[in-house]
């Protein structure tokens, strides 16, 4: 038991710097994922055929290619094609754009979950399409997509480890843990603490999602 604490004490700088890198990676990727995801969802539900189509291509491309492959293409392929990209850019772009595809689908299904009658009612009352979206549909959709978005954010936090474990080798929590492991050989202790680090992040997010769910719940 004491070995567990010793490993943590001795390598706290590595673990905490790794955790900090993971946090920054996750936050930046989340911002990209939400922005791009919302835009793509808007394209998918817009009343314009070619926009739907464009959004569909985005979703299918990013949702159907493994994140690891995206990372290799971005980090190892793009520079060969003359596009310079560093570790952070590759990590954030891939994780963000990959997650955005899922978020777009979650948002789209949330909008479709709102009854068609609501749109028709709003439009027949003379509201414009954007206004109908903003005032009637999105508030109701937001409520239904919170649990789904929560799962996606949790998945994204866990997927962030792929950035550190891949050829990008960003010094995130996993990469640091592996370096400590190769220094000490104390596999169980080292990866126990790496797991604890990820749990800290995911459990915090879980609590936040619970709060949001309660905050927007429909009282029945």
């Amino acid at each position: 038991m004491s070995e567990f604490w010793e490993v943590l004490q001795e390598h706290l700088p590595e673990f905490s710097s790794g955790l900090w890198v993971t946090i920054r990676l996750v936050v930046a990727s989340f911002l990209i994922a939400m922005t791009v995801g919302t835009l793509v969802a808007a394209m998918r539900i817009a009343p314009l055929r070619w926009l739907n189509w464009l959004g569909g291509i985005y979703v299918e491309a990013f949702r159907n290619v493994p994140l690891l492959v995206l990372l290799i293409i971005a980090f190892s392929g793009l520079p060969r094609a003359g596009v310079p990209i560093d570790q952070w850019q590759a990590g954030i772009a891939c994780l963000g754009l990959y997650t955005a595809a899922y978020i777009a689908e979650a948002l789209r299904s949330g909008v479709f979950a709102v009854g068609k009658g609501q749109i028709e009612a709003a439009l027949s009352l003379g509201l414009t399409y954007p206004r109908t979206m903003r005032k009637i549909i999105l508030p109701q959709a937001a409520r239904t997509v919170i649990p789904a978005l929560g799962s996606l954010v949790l998945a994204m936090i866990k997927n962030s480890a792929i950035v550190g474990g891949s050829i990008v080798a960003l010094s995130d929590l996993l990469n640091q843990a592996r370096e400590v492991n190769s220094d000490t050989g104390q596999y169980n202790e080292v990866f126990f603490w790496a797991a604890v680090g990820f749990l800290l992040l995911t459990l915090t997010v879980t609590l936040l999602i619970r709060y949001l769910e309660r905050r927007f719940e429909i009282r029945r």
Partner: protein
Amino acid sequence: MNGTHWRLIAVAMVVFVSVLAVACGDDEDDGGEETTATEVEQFPADTTMGKIQEAGEITIGVKYDVPPFGLNNPQTGEVEGFDVDLGTYIAEKLGVEVQTREATSDNRIPLLVDGTIDLILSTMTITEERDLEVDFSEPYYVANGDVLVPEGSDIQSLDDLNGKRVCTALGSTYADTIEKEAPQAELRLVDLYSECFDLVQAGQVDAVSTDNVILTGMVIQDPTLQLLGLDYTTEPYGIGIPEGDTEMKQFVDDTLAEYIDSGTWQEAYDEWVGQYVAEDQQQGPPDITLDEAIALFPLEK
């Protein structure tokens, strides 16, 4: 077509049964192959050698991406190299088949500890720290640390690595060495040397540092890369043996001595390494002992 079909099923069943046999351990007594060639010594059933003979095969953990020591050759589909030859020689001494499994710098010790592989032959430098987890044979090769850079690089010495992106493999000795020699270097730690190779070609790192023989393999594949020829560390390779298995260590050491004395070592060297190394850099079998090797990489603290 039907024939192939049945043959496939037969192969699958054989594989399944042998996996079962391995999983069930020593209570399986039939031991398949009776390759008792006259010169093969039969070992007592309770020794590791005896168990390997009973199983009819030995699994060695080798690199799959490090020519000329261990390479899964895409042209032939065979795993080959200096390490593989030595492992095959040991297998022949036991009269068993040799199986290879990919063992990277990071996973080779866990694979040996959990029994997935019987021996590590994975360009593994002997260090005191590793000696705590596994037993080492006497050194079977001595490599030197070097740095590989792209053509036209301004890196000419270890000092120049400061502020530069340097790639090496997780679990190798070089992460520590580079931190010591060039503290300002930005280390990139990846699983495989082939990934370092990929990164330096893509311009994502400025240099790769590891054993000269591994780097030589990269230059063979891409002549625009070059070695600095610094030879800044001495890295004696040892065969990894499960910790505390003194009989196995004795057997491996004896076999290695025979491998060297019979001239087989030199043949393997000429085939795999010698042809790529300049005339004045050719080397013979290691003249360093295990204790001397351990002293080169003592425990920190």
